[in-house]
């Protein structure tokens, strides 16, 4: 072996020896021990939380880059916040290159796991849950990365959030996969975000399964490039329990997938079934806004090769405006796919640019309904369209998202 080789070897060994393993066990002082370890750990370290029940009176937080925090399983290492007295979330992460794996966060008073401004956050095999079932007093979000980049949520379970089980907001480069969202108001929600792949997830027994939203007056808006595929959004049958005032409070029970005010969204190979209001809808943001930088209408939405089971059989006309309007206009014949047809006024008159149009490639027995807002406003007797032909065309597949070599 050459001298240089030996030197390199020594260097590697010495680098590795710097990375510590820190072990925390449940017990009376676990909160302080864990929080202290989360503060004092250094780059490269791994913190291991042995299996058992950890009880917290205050939220905990991590602000060290390039570390791993790992439990011994989402049913074994339990962080319980039932007695939380302070902190707006259970666990807060504000650093980069962090991996969280194999533990559960239960009954946080606010959000369960919030991640702010992180570049490189992996959430793997984690569970967030409010154990008392769906209640408006539950915290808002299970998984809540915001203003982050390279966000991976993989193999996670989110139950009982009063807003969204898995919520990714104002972020970039996102993969949400192999996860389960149940008994939340929204199962999975991607909001004001760019470049996301949402695949191989199960969203069931929520109010709405999967939501792709964009809202005004925020630092990052104009959500785009989002692929939703190979998911099951089925039996979303929980009454909306979101506190009023929140945008998800307007989602009717029995919504499979809903896209609001995004561009370049591709929805394919999903199963949508048992959603009593409507399996798939594409809508504009309908509230008043003075934000000059905000575009409230969906553009370049592509829908293909999805499977539709029973839907629209018991629309929730009590919640929000959408279901009620659709129910009235369709005379109760709820479609598999609904587009509200709302476009800027000039496009209502002169037509939508071809490249912006909704595109569908679905089986012929999949029903579709859209409204001509102009005819509707002018009081035409039949302002609806159910023919898909106008909206068929070749699909332009969006590029997959790649994070650290991970991609579908």
């Amino acid at each position, binding site marked *: 072996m050459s001298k240089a080789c030996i030197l390199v070897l020594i260097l590697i060994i010495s680098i590795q020896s710097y990375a510590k393993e820190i072990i925390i066990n449940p017990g009376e002082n676990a*909160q*302080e*021990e864990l*929080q*202290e370890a*989360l*503060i*004092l750990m250094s780059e490269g370290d791994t913190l291991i939380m042995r299996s058992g029940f950890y009880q917290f*009176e*205050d*939220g905990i*937080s*991590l*602000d060290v880059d390039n570390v791993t925090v790992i439990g011994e399983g989402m049913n074994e290492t339990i962080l319980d916040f039932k007695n*939380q*007295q*302070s*902190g*707006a979330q259970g666990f*807060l992460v*504000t650093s980069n290159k962090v991996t969280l794996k194999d533990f559960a966060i239960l009954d*946080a*008073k*606010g*959000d369960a796991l919030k991640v*702010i*401004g992180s570049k490189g956050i992996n959430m793997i095999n984690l569970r967030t849950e409010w154990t008392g079932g769906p209640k*408006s*007093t*539950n*915290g*808002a*979000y299970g998984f*809540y990365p*915001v*203003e982050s980049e390279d966000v991976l949520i993989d193999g996670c379970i989110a139950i009982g959030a*009063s*807003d969204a089980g898995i*919520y990714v*907001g*104002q972020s970039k480069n996102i993969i949400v996969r192999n996860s389960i969202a149940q008994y939340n108001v929204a199962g999975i929600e991607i*909001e004001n975000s760019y470049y996301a792949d949402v695949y191989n997830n199960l969203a069931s027994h929520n109010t709405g399964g999967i939501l792709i939203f964009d*809202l005004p*007056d*925020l*630092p*990052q808006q104009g959500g785009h490039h989002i692929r939703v595929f190979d998911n099951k959004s089925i039996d979303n049958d929980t009454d909306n329990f*979101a*506190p*009023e*005032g*929140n*945008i998800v409070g307007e989602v009717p029970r029995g919504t499979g997938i809903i896209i609001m005010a995004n561009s370049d969204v591709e929805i394919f190979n999903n199963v949508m079934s048992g959603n009593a209001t409507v399996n798939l809808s594409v809508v504009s943001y309908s*509230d008043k806004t*003075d*934000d000059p930088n905000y575009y409230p209408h969906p553009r370049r939405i592509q829908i293909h090769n999805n499977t539709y089971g029973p839907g629209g059989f018991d629309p929730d006309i009590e919640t929000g405006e959408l279901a009620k309007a659709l129910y009235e206009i369709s005379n109760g014949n709820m479609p598999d796919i609904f587009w509200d047809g709302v476009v800027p006024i000039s496009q209502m008159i002169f037509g939508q640019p071809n490249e912006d149009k909704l595109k569908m490639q679905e089986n012929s027995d999949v029903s579709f309904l859209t409204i001509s807002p102009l005819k509707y406003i002018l009081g035409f007797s039949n302002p609806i369209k159910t023919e898909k032909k106008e909206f068929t065309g070749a699909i332009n597949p969006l590029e997959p998202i790649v994070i650290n070599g991970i991609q579908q």
Partner: protein
Amino acid sequence: MKKKFLILLVLVLCSKLAAINNNLIISDSFPKKLSEFGFFLDDSAQTPHENVIPYDLISTLFSDYSYKQRWVYVPNNKKATYEENWVFNFPVGSALIKTFYYPVDDRNPELGKNLLETRLLLRKENGWEAVSYAWNDEQNEAYKKIAGKTINVSWTDFLGSDRDVRYRVPNVNQCKECHAAEDKITPIGPKARNINKKFDYDDGEFNQLAYWMSKQIINDYPKELVSPIDWMDEKQNINDRVRSYLDVNCGHCHSPTGNANSTGLYLHLDETRDVHLGLYKKPVATGRGSGGLKYSIVPGKPDESILLHRMISLDPGVMMPESGRALSHTEAVEMVREWILVMED
């Protein structure tokens, strides 16, 4: 001879004890005990070293009715430089020291006080670092608390009512929640405009900026300064009072560069856009924090305004600020209520 030696020894020791340990301020780690720094000649009585200068701010953050005593230390022969609209740029080796306490009885300072914690901001080579020391039950030493601490404390308020609070000493990460700008820790208080007021020193009453100048710890300060108003000053216009209060209590996070910028609600003094100040602004990711209300502020309708709801609440999933408060700030709540009530649509 022996006696002389002993006296000498005592003198040497005393002068050692009375010295500020400059190396500890810039060291990589924090000592276990506050007394090791030597900021105080008498720690329990909080009698500062002569180079540790007390100061006060015009408008302050609410911290559960606790009292705060502040000191600044700048090493000999160094000066902090004036920065426009920002905190003084303190030299390496400086320290900002803040002790939180409750008097036994608000009405009678003679009855003594309970020291809770002393927070330090230390200017090291690579920037500021924050740490807090919690006082022991004997009140003669404060110990480093990296992960924070809960102190259950009670006192008698100005009305003679017994009050108690679950006071939280913040952990190091929580310090950063407020004391961060562009991901670096920074002081908030000692901006020239914030300390432009008189202070009653041992050697007389002086304007703090003039005093700092005379003590040669700052290089300069502008003679003309627009200072914030004291939100408690009822002679002032209510809008100015509320904006001053919101700026110091909310604006560090709720600004385009703060921790809460993703909300779109901006409460720092410079914000002028109605919707970003909360007028008819819908909640974004508020969850049950909305309390079933539709907008941050509905002019004329304080009870329909989420901002007020979250100021009143004591529920950790609802209340604002997210940390540092366990009690409702009744006086401020009343002021903000009035502000929203008279606000024109």
